[in-house]
């Protein structure tokens, strides 16, 4: 059924259609509307057979989710930003225990400085947590990915994070096609846990594992996660057969067949990028787009296939590993490392900075012209940072004069660095 609704609400409804049995709620922008929505559905009686628990923290939210999932209940929660980090320990734990919890992350920057606006730092901080991470481009996809996430997670017995851009998607009123309960039921079988806390068949879940077996445990987690690379496309196909639309999968290329320049990105920014690319195509530029839906496990082979004919790849990411550079870009670069492709890392939209078509035009143009540096920041206010850097350089304690002199002539530099 088509309807005009807020992204958060669309997700809440979709989650409800998945018949979650336990939902843990804790407020944090821009996720809050989602759990509010689910809560209302539970309270009104529309979503039956569901325990909606107002917990005291995100750490508790994930912990409650761990308990309920281990006891065999389909479990959902949502968070963002500080909340995700607050529950970080439990996030790792949920995947270590192999519990198919589904969690929406309404992506938001991490403080300090505290900032409520969108970027991907939060989810990407959890990229090694063992969770599957799906990134939605649109509200429709966000909605669809939640349904697929339950299917995928429960099949693999692994938790899944559905990432959607805070505010940009969560708070946007868009038209979505809301599936029917029958469709969802046809697609998503009832949760049948791989392992469950059950007095009839007692087991101890969560043993302490020492060096003698820990590596193997980690390897097996990796192998298991990688199974998603086959499942995701299959589930997307099945999804299409029931719901009649393309949604999910590993990645989506757009006008990339003959592209010399391919822009790689995740999430809602893909829309703006595609618009820009359309305009540049119209101007004759051989430019295309590759949008990544599945970030974890990282579909390296498929990324390589999608990018192999490009001359250059511009990875535009809403995340940034301070002191190192891109995160998505590093993953992409590794995937295509054997290919003679120039890869550019562009930090963009951090803390909610608007990503405009105008800036993108300039960015892509620069890349095509070979003028782009390998690591840049879209619309960085150079003036501000330069001034600050200059101020700091002046104020910085200069240390003993003799040493400064030596440093100037380069004698101790090697030792210092």
């Amino acid at each position: 059924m088509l309807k005009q609704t807020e992204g958060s609400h669309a997700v809440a409804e979709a989650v409800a259609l998945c018949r979650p049995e336990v939902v843990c709620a804790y407020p944090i922008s821009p996720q809050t509307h989602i759990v509010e929505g689910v809560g209302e559905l539970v309270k009104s009686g529309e979503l039956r057979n569901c325990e909606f628990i107002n917990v005291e923290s995100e750490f508790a939210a994930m912990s409650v989710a761990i308990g309920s999932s281990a006891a065999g209940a389909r479990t959902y929660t949502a968070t963002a930003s500080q909340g995700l980090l607050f529950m970080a320990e439990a996030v790792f734990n949920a995947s270590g225990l192999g519990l198919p919890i589904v969690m929406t992350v309404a992506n938001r920057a991490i403080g300090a400085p505290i900032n409520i606006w969108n970027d991907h730092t939060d989810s990407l901080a959890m990229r090694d947590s063992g969770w599957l991470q799906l990134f939605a481009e649109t509200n429709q996809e966000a909605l669809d990915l939640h349904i697929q996430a339950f299917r995928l997670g429960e099949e693999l017995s692994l938790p899944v994070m559905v990432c959607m851009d805070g505010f940009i998607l969560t708070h946007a009123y868009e038209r979505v096609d809301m599936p029917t309960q029958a469709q969802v039921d046809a697609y998503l079988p009832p949760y049948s846990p791989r392992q469950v806390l059950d007095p009839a068949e007692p087991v101890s879940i969560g043993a302490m594992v020492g060096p003698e077996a820990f590596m193997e445990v980690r390897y097996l987690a990796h192998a298991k996660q990688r199974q998603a690379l086959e499942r995701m496309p299959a589930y997307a196909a099945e999804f299409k057969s029931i719901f009649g639309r393309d949604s999910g999968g590993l990645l989506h290329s757009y006008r990339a067949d003959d592209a010399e320049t391919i822009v790689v990105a995740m999430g809602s920014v893909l829309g703006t990028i595609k618009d820009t690319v359309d305009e540049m195509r119209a101007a004759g530029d051989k430019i295309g787009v590759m949008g990544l839906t599945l970030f974890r496990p990282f579909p390296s082979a498929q990324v390589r296939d999608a990018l192999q004919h490009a001359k250059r790849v511009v990875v535009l990411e809403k995340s940034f590993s301070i002191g190192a550079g891109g995160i998505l870009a590093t993953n992409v670069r590794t995937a295509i490392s054997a290919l003679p492709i120039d890869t550019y890392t562009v930090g963009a939209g951090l803390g909610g900075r608007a990503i405009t078509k105008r800036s993108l035009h300039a960015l892509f143009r620069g890349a095509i012209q070979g003028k782009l540096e390998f690591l840049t920041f879209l619309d960085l206010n150079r003036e501000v940072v330069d001034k600050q850097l200059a101020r700091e350089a002046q104020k910085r304690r200069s240390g003993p004069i003799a040493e400064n002199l030596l440093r100037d002539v380069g004698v101790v530099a090697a030792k210092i660095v």
Partner: protein
Amino acid sequence: MEKPFAITLDPGSSLANRTGSWRTYRPEYLDRLPPCNAACPAGENIQAWLFNAESGDYEKAWRSLTVNNPLPATMGRVCYHPCEGACNRQHLDASVGINSVERFLGDEAIKRGWKFVKPEKQSGKRVLVVGAGPAGLSAAYQLALLGHAVSIYEAGPAAGGMMRFGIPKYRLPRDVLDSEIARIVDLGVELRLNTHVDDLKQAMAEGRFDACFLGVGAHIAKRAYIPAGDANRVLDAVSVLRSMEGAHEEEMKPLLGRRVVVYGGGNTAIDVARTAKRLGAEESIIVYRRTREKMPAHDFEVEEALQEGVMMKWLSTIKEAGEGELTVEKMALDENGFPQPTGEYETVAADSLVLALGQDADLSLLGKVAGLVIDQGVVQVDAAMMTGCPGVFAGGDMAGNDRTVTVAVGHGKKAARAIDAWLRGGKYEASPKPEMATFERLNTWYYSDAPKTVRPVLDIIRRQSTFEEVLGGLDETNAQFEARRCLSCGNCFECDNCYGVCPDNAVIKLGPGKRFVFNYDYCKGCGVCVAECPCGAIRMVPEEN
């Protein structure tokens, strides 16, 4: 269920981890010797029979008791219960009333008509027992149980020895004694009354006995030289008490008069004084040369006598017995605690003077027995109660200076077992005594607080005028309560503590009556069970390697 590798484990699988290898000390169960048992001259396994009484299995308790002593109803009245003096519970509140429970069991047995079980096989050996006092009865009982043909030759007209002809009725009703003796006789013991053995060798030869046990007691009253004007009025305690029994037709109730003085400080003196009171004496005075603390009589008996109006004159000796009065010299204790004359005299009005100065044994029957050694009137025996003459054993008052019914019973038992061994050509070895269950071995935290049960006492008027039994017995409720005050020193009473307190579940409970065993596969040797065993029935021993 699909269990993820290493993270999810099968229940209880740690059994594969034998933590017993950590141990440097191992716990071991043992039975330590309870102090009551150690103190019992009859060798009763008191803790064991209390254990049965605790659960209300009185017959089992009685059977357990009578393994060592066939006279519980009697003992429950006359025994001076050294067991209670040794009882560990006295350090908590008061000793367990062992004696009262014993009496309850004995009375219960009489009431219910419990009998001893005759042995299945007879040995074919014949044993003579001389004297039907407690020593003789005990020996006869044990020998009969061991399958020997036993004959008791008793000089007197009834069995019981001093239990009958010494101990007054108000302490030991005769029907009680009669029932317990009858039960022994019922085992097939031949009891020949009015049969004084004058010549042991002859008696043995005539009766074709293979061995004999002597328990002739000590019946000849000791006398002190007291110049007496009217000798008729000076009597001896044993005769007085004996005549109370009217054993011989010719013996009349003694005529003691209104004012009776008893000379001596032992239990016999007390018994006579109390008897005199009951016979109507207005004054019954005990004269003793030392202080109350030094009196050999038991304190509770002195107390009872005082309650009944018996008077005491301590630190006094009788110098002369005149017409209707006695001359008494006051004594004073010297620095060593011995009484010394002071030269101060007084007179005490008295219609009669009863001497209670102890008894000697009449050993004339032993004249022709070779090898037998008598030292200061006491027949010498070895550790197995055998005299210098092989096959002739002795016990009771004649064979020791510790003269009580209980000692006599113990002697009789021990001698019987030794006779049995001797008849089989062996030598009796007492089983080695386990280590003591001292108070320090106990963890008394675990016992409920419970004061000793007081036995009912006859009211004072009837005590002064009748020979009714003074001390009552316990009813079932009280007897069981009293039994349950037992701390079960040194012996497992299945409180389940070790089973419960083991942090490693390394104690296996075998079920009622079967106690516990350690599972050394898992016992880490922490010692919590030892510390928390209430009764000290576990010890730690170093592991060998």
